[in-house]
């Protein structure tokens, strides 16, 4: 461990954090514009050309808002909670690789990854599991019953969906035979894990929606029932931090989803192009990553625009009774498929998606039998 190493980590981390912060600002703009289009509106278009300065205007507004701490709130935790919420959102993507072509800079070989550790997926798991603290503490320290209910709801929800999330990670680990993120992406050269484990991807996306409290699982901050839940007492920059955490988590999980299921930085090789090929060789990985994250983010916004919030007891029942057994079944069929492919014939690898789709079908059957809204008899 040399000074150079430390400097490299610091600079890479700083650059990525800055990208995340800028990304947060423009993700709010992206979401508002996309939601507006879905609702046949235009969206923010006043501040600057196409409303591109809108996030900056919002930031300025938030900075000048009054900072407010409720009476009998726990002051220390009230101030700490937004920071505790934001930190995991910023650090969780440290292990995601953004490209595989290292480049030379100041005599050092720089890789497109902040930390290349062998337990990369487990790192993501563990950071995802501590992300709940900020929300719980924000809810508790506000000394407000709605905030508290939001915090408790989010604890229960995040613990429940973490299991399905972790198990869907396991299918990826099995398919790639590694917990190192770069190995997982490289293992997708033959085919994205989206094709090999479609239902696993679906579970991952659903569970992450619940993890980051996005619609239709935005129970902890349900505006209508809980008056915005855990952040109802927050204003000004503290609210901005909570908001930032939520959107940075969206970016983070889309980045992780892109790396785990959508081939990460892989894509058609452009380095053969005449003029820009030499340059593209290095940056095509990040560009593909950006495109995938952009599309996945649109998916999240699209789901938010479409689906209404589901009821709390159904959310829990769905997590424990459907997603958890389904993801266990997926691990089983994935392991069986890998074993068959190893010992009998490599073509058995394609039995995994088939079996996983069958398992998904059975899960829908189970959902149809137990969770379906009962038809009321009408006179």
């Amino acid at each position, binding site marked *: *461990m040399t000074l150079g190493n430390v400097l490299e980590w610091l600079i890479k981390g700083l650059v990525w954090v800055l990208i995340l912060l800028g990304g947060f600002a423009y993700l709010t703009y992206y979401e508002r514009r996309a939601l507006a289009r879905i609702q046949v509106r235009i969206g923010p278009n006043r501040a600057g050309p196409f409303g591109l300065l809108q996030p900056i205007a919002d930031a300025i507004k938030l900075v000048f808002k009054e900072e407010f701490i409720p009476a009998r709130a*726990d002051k220390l*935790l009230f101030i700490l909670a937004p920071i505790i919420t934001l930190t995991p959102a910023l650090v969780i993507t440290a292990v995601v690789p953004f490209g595989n072509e290292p480049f030379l800079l100041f005599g050092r070989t720089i890789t497109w990854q902040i930390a*290349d*550790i*062998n*337990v990369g997926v*487990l*790192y993501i*798991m*563990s*950071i*995802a*599991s*501590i992300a*709940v*603290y900020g929300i*719980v*503490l924000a809810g*508790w320290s506000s000394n407000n019953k709605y905030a*508290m209910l939001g*915090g*408790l709801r989010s*604890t*229960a929800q*995040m*613990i429940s969906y*973490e299991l399905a999330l*972790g198990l869907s990670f396991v299918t990826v680990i099995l398919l790639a035979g*590694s*917990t*190192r993120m770069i*190995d997982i992406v490289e293992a997708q050269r033959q085919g994205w894990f989206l094709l090999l484990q479609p239902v696993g991807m679906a579970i991952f996306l659903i569970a992450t929606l619940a993890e980051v409290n996005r619609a239709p699982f935005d129970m902890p901050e349900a505006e209508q029932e809980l008056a915005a839940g855990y952040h109802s007492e927050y204003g000004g920059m503290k609210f901005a931090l909570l908001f930032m955490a939520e959107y940075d988590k969206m970016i983070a999980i889309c980045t992780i989803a892109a790396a785990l299921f959508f081939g990460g930085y892989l894509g058609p090789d452009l380095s053969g192009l005449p003029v820009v090929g030499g340059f593209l060789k290095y940056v095509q990985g990040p560009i593909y990553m950006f495109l995938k994250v952009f599309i996945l983010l649109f998916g999240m916004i699209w789901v938010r625009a479409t689906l209404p919030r589901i009821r709390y007891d159904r959310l829990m029942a769905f997590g424990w009774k459907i997603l958890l057994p389904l993801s266990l079944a997926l691990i089983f069929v994935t392991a069986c498929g890998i074993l068959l492919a190893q010992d009998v014939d490599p073509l058995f690898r394609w039995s995994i998606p088939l079996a996983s789709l069958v398992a998904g079908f059975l899960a829908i059957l189970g959902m149809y039998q137990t969770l379906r809204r009962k038809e009321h008899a009408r006179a």
Partner: protein
Amino acid sequence: MDFTLILFIILAVTAVATAAGLLLSRSAVYAALFLVLNFACVAVFYLILGAPFVAMAQVTVYAGAIMVLFLFVIMLLGVEKLPKGDVLPWQRPLAIVAAAILLAEAGFLLFERARTSSLLALPGAEANTMDSLREMATVLFNQYLLPFEVTSILLLVAMVGAIVLTKREKGEPA
């Protein structure tokens, strides 16, 4: 003083301080948060000792699941603070004496019996390879398969037990 020793001292002081915070804090919420910090320190110790898998399991299970569950129960029951009132006034001094005896005993055994010569270096690149994880998995699923299965059954039993203990009978008031 080399770098690792400084790191060790900082972490050790933090670990002891957070444990003291657990002992002394009035509010159960603060106690839980101090314990989370303590677990985080221990996780960093595991990393220094070349056990990244255990470190991640520590953060995921202890900090991510167990302590969140503690916080959940504290908030659910609303028992951040207990009312004052000591039933056993002699308990505290007696406990401190007992703890001092325990510490002295542990120290005596450590300095009398432990091999104090071995020096633990920071792990090299070998701890950060997939091979080390694979070997660990091989040991786990061959040599320790029975304990692993027993543990899984234990977890299942615990899950069933937790549900049975907290489930209300039909008609029982809340």
